[in-house]
């Protein structure tokens, strides 16, 4: 079930009144059943996977918590990791590893008789696996208590707003909130509705409007001019941002209505002035997960420069692989790893230069923002190619090659100007809201000013009616 569908609207009309009519155990049952219906709407067979994962991690958590012997605790944690990463590895990466193995064998002149399996990727597996894994790791680290109530734990894993595309809400943040009996609150309702509507606008009006232009660019880049493809690359950077952050906004808003507080997943990432800052603003729940459970355990930046570079690169490569079983995603991770490493060299030199020439702060910030955005968009070109299977690198290289050729670099060579103008209007609106939001925090202000709330909500609905693309397109991050 996708948020931008009539089915979900009906689901919401049934779920929310029942949610506030129930309490305690009944409410937990309702959350669990509704979340399973929400997930099973796509393919009920994969519910068993969530159930197994939930049941096993619940018990692994109990086993880890029941003993103080370090090696036993570690053993149970390893079992939990094998199960979780095993599911993920099999469903998401099996064919990727087989194909990579076959390609490698071909390169050495062998012809292995290996066949790939027809495996369907269970939607959201990367998200709930990481969520579940964080629970057992945190118990192992003695950072959270063991959860004794299977129903509550299952509801925590399956909670529908975040089940299929995050944010990856950790046990330490969400499980304590599930102990409270949430009451209906108008503040939560208004605030949640504001977030939902804003997320819906980002998805339906911006991301889905930019999608056809972007899809054409990547379908056959050789057909288009340099300027057309450059616009396509910029549009894709905003398409993926609005698609994913739009989903997060809807998830956060739905949770807010239910009385839950989710972590912020996006904090205006394209205003970052460095790559390390970018990763504290983009997909925060994943980047902080990778930082806490991979980068820091690897040693972080504590064991010298070389190890820091190595840890940065490993984290980003695995972050790339998390997004999908394709070398283009890994390469995207590699580029970001490289950016983080190079930044460590360049930053001191740049700072010295800024000081030397007495560069005004706003110019320095502007240059940094544009540089980070440009290089991030460059990496997105490979990322977008990642969903094209075997041709991913060829297509991405074609896009980059044609952009850098500057052949026919003019407005006349741009096709679909209607989509371009519409895109520019929408992006100008998005950036205006994001910039002014830093000062006014619109979603908070509207809580205290009903007239402003009415104007904002009505305005957004009118904007959606004028610019929305209504074909229930799935969210990009579902595939991860």
């Amino acid at each position, binding site marked *: 079930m996708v948020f931008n569908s009539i089915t979900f609207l009906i689901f919401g009309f049934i779920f929310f009144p029942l949610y506030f009519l129930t309490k305690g155990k009944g409410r937990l049952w309702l959350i669990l059943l509704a979340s399973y219906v929400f997930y099973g709407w796509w393919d009920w067979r994969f519910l068993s996977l969530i159930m197994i994962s939930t049941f096993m991690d619940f018990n692994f958590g109990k086993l880890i918590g029941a003993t103080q012997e370090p090696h036993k605790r570690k053993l149970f944690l390893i079992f939990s990791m094998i199960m979780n990463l095993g599911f993920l590895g099999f469903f998401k990466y099996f064919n990727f590893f087989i194909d990579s193995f076959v390609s490698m064998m071909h390169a050495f002149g062998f012809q292995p008789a290996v066949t790939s399996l027809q495996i369907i990727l269970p939607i959201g597996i990367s998200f709930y696996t990481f969520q579940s894994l964080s629970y057992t790791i945190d118990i192992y680290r003695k950072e959270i208590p063991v959860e004794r109530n299977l129903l509550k734990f299952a509801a925590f894993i399956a909670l529908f707003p975040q089940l299929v595309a995050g944010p990856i809400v950790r046990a330490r943040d969400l499980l304590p909130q599930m102990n409270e009996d949430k009451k209906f609150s*108008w503040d939560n309702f208004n605030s949640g509705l504001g977030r939902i509507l804003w997320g819906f606008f980002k998805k339906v009006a911006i991301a889905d409007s930019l999608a056809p232009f972007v899809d054409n660019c990547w379908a056959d880049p*050789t*057909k288009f001019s340099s300027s057309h493809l450059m616009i396509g690359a910029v549009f894709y950077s905003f398409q993926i941002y609005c698609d994913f952050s739009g989903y997060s906004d809807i998830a956060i808003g739905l949770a807010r209505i239910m009385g839950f507080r989710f972590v912020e997943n996006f904090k205006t990432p394209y205003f970052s002035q460095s790559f390390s800052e970018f990763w504290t603003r983009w997909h925060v729940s994943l980047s902080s997960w990778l930082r806490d459970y991979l980068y820091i355990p690897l040693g972080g930046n504590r064991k010298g420069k070389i190890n820091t570079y190595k840890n940065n690169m490993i984290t980003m490569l695995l972050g790339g692989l998390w997004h999908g079983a394709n070398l283009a995603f890994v390469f995207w991770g590699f580029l970001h790893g490289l950016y983080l490493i190079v930044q460590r060299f360049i930053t001191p030199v740049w700072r010295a230069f800024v000081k030397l020439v007495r560069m005004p702060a706003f110019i320095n910030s502007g240059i940094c923002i544009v540089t980070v955005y440009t290089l991030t968009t460059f990496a997105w070109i490979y990322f977008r190619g990642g969903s094209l299977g075997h041709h991913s690198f060829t297509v991405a290289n074609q896009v980059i090659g044609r952009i850098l050729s500057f052949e*026919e670099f003019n407005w*006349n*060579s741009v096709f679909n100007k*209607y989509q371009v*103008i*519409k895109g520019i209007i929408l992006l100008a609106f998005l950036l205006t809201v994001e910039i002014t939001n830093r000062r006014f925090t619109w979603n908070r202000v509207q809580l205290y000013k*009903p007239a402003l709330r*009415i*104007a904002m*909500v*009505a305005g957004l*609905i*009118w904007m959606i*009616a*004028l*610019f*929305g693309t*209504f074909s229930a397109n799935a969210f990009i991050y579902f595939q991860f």
Partner: protein
Amino acid sequence: MKKAGWVIFFIGVLFAGDRLIGWFFQHEVEKSQFRYSRMYRGEGKADIMIVGNSRGLNFYQPYMEQATGKKTFSLCYYSMPCEIATVLAEDYLDRYQVQTVLCEISIVEMSEDKLLPGFTTYMPYSKRIDSVLKAKVNDSWVTSQVSHIYRFNNEVFQRALFYRNHLDDDWFFDHTISERLAKEALGSSVEFKVPEKHVQDLKQLADYCRARNINIKFVIGPFFPLYTVKHLDLVKKRVEEATV
């Protein structure tokens, strides 16, 4: 009770704002120099009327006027759906007496439902457009009844705004075929389909013209010589059979 009051007030604002903005956009469309606005406003008088898709747009109106010495009016639009092309032509013929209608026959295979909602902008002026949209894209039709703003969520409206203050007779496809594209044309092809429903639409248009003693000619713009066009003869033959 106070909350209910706010909710009712909100619905009122939402509805009134929708109608007000819709009215404003409609007003702008009415004043536009775009072809359909001019036609429905009564400023489309001509000797020759052209109807077709982007290939029809290449029958460059100012040049045709220069070559024939006759005033021309184009109803062409990129990827014009055949159903809309025929009803626009009929609307035109109801309003103006022309000598000749030129119909670019490659519209016979244009039935892209995604493009139909674009014409919700001109729905209030034409019962024919209204009924085509109601039958073919009912969701969009219903939505455009609920929200008048939604009627302007399309490219047609944007063009109407673009041509708000100047004539659209400079609109034609002015890209140069680069050497690379010319080479690629060798390996490319297009295959025409001939949906019977659209052949009948053209027949209906032909009958409509003849009933009014208007000369109708079915034409097709030239294709790039290296580009393979499959079933073009079939299109010509079927249209000829149905309309002669």
